[in-house]
């Protein structure tokens, strides 16, 4: 089966710093891929290149046959990629419901239809009852949930989650993981997760890709990657050796 997303030798430089060097990666439809690596490895830069916020200096990014290497973010979204951000973003002055409605307009132009879809999704992600809260007033966990809901409203085929669990309490983290599982299970999306919290990423992912200093170190099933010497040296530390 042809991959949904294909990143071919993507390179991105910021002045003298090479944030991504020759990174290649493929994501199949419906799979969950974890993207890990120490801080500064270039994970968010890669996300930015995929989603169109940045453009790679070299290489290609192809989504289901369409070349999106230099596409603007709105086109990338239209083609089926949605993302959340490392530092959570929302339309602060609009209510929760209005935020999601904005996303829903990607698939319909009628306000009533968008509203209905938004309400549906809010119920699905567990924010029912908070529709009329102004986004800026939400807790961090709820803001992240809102971001995800809004992204889902655009009916993506691939969802990019950038550190969706950071800053959450253990309780909130468990809830978030459960949400991701549910999204994957019921909506059948491909998901790519950037995470630092190992206990989250490893069990969740079908496959893990490791970046270090801008380059891809290795990839494979979580258990294998966790045992890989190079990965351990770069990042995981001895505690995780052998953990599956």
């Amino acid at each position, binding site marked *: 089966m042809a991959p949904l997303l294909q990143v071919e030798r993507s390179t991105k430089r910021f002045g003298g710093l090479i944030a991504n060097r020759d990174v290649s990666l493929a994501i199949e439809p419906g799979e969950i891929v974890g993207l890990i690596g120490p801080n500064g490895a270039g994970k968010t830069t890669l996300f930015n290149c995929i989603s169109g916020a940045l453009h790679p200096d070299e290489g290609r990014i192809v989504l289901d046959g369409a070349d999106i290497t230099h596409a603007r973010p*709105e086109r990338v*979204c239209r083609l089926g990629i949605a993302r959340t951000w490392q530092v959570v*973003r*929302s339309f602060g002055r*609009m209510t929760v419901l*209005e935020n999601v409605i*904005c996303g829903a307009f990607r698939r319909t*132009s009628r306000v009533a239809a968008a509203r209905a879809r938004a309400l549906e999704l809010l119920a699905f992600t567990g924010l029912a009852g908070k529709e009329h809260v102004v986004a800026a007033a939400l807790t961090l966990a709820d803001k992240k949930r809102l971001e995800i809901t*809004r992204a889902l409203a655009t009916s993506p085929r691939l969802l990019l989650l950038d550190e969706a669990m950071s800053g959450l309490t253990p309780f909130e983290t468990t809830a978030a993981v459960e949400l991701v599982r549910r999204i994957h299970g019921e909506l059948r999306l491909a998901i790519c997760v950037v995470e630092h919290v190992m206990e989250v990423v490893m069990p969740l992912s079908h496959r893990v890709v490791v970046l270090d200093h801008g380059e891809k170190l290795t990839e494979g099933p979580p258990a294998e990657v966790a045992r890989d010497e190079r990965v351990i040296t770069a990042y995981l530390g001895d505690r995780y050796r052998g953990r599956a």
Partner: protein
Amino acid sequence: MLGALVALLYPIPFERSGQIYYETVGFLVLLNAMLGIGWNIIGGWAGQFDFGPSIFFAIGAYTAALLTINLGWNAWLALLGAMVVSAAICAAVTYPVTKLRGHYFAIATVAMWMIAQPIGATWPLINGSQGLFIPVATGGGFVHGVLTMEFPGRGKGLGFYYLSLALFTITLLAARAIERSKWGFYFRAVRDDQDGAEAIGIDSRLYKVIARCLMAVVFAAGGTLYGFWALAVFPDQVLEVNWNILPMMAAVVGGLGRLWGPVLGAVVLIPISQLMATTLGTGPLAGRGIDLIIYGAIIMVIAGWRPNGLLSLPWSEWAARLRGHASASGKA
């Protein structure tokens, strides 16, 4: 509802007493309120601050004037023509500028306005600084006046008052419809978080252009109305700083981004200027821009202490307290 009634009946006492001047004040209030609503679309909803909207006011006035004078078009057709031309020009000049954000966009709009001034003063097509004059037919009753936007003689104040009321109402209703539509959502999304908006599929550049063009259309309509009222279009007049600032002030003072904000603002601000003009009359301080000084002071006060405008004051709280007092003293 009460407001609508007041608005409709407003000119009548003045008609009776022959003080037509006040009808003109009403006309100006409504005109500025309408422009304020237009500005609110780009400034309040889309969050892109345009400091040079008067170029579209001028484009509207000139287009309508040219269509009427040179091609003999009916006033209302000319109005439509003006709106279309204004939108077209706006789209053309705004698209490149949409890459700019925040302050830079604002300065660019001012720059556009400053470029427009010498063009207005020297372009032969519009007769440069000598202006264009709109011919008015004498005679003709009220209905004829409505059809052609010409009210010779005494009917002028009344006629233009109702014309402006009509256009204002249309603008208000249109704005309300837009606010609740997909466009309304998208504008506010671009304002709150442009990158986030793009990530959910909103073409921020396109919507900035749309918002500004909507404003351009409203300003063009206003400019046309003004042109027919003044019966002449001069570059200094229509590109004046006031047409830039007053609608924006009305919107901000009343409540930026709120539908009725500009209306409240216009109702508060315009009479101040007129009051200054009448009380200072020809005295020593006349023509010294006292009204602008007051405007300046008001702007600074609002900016410093009540940036969300007058509508954001806790009216309902105060009303409740008043009612509380009333009932308490009633009981006691």
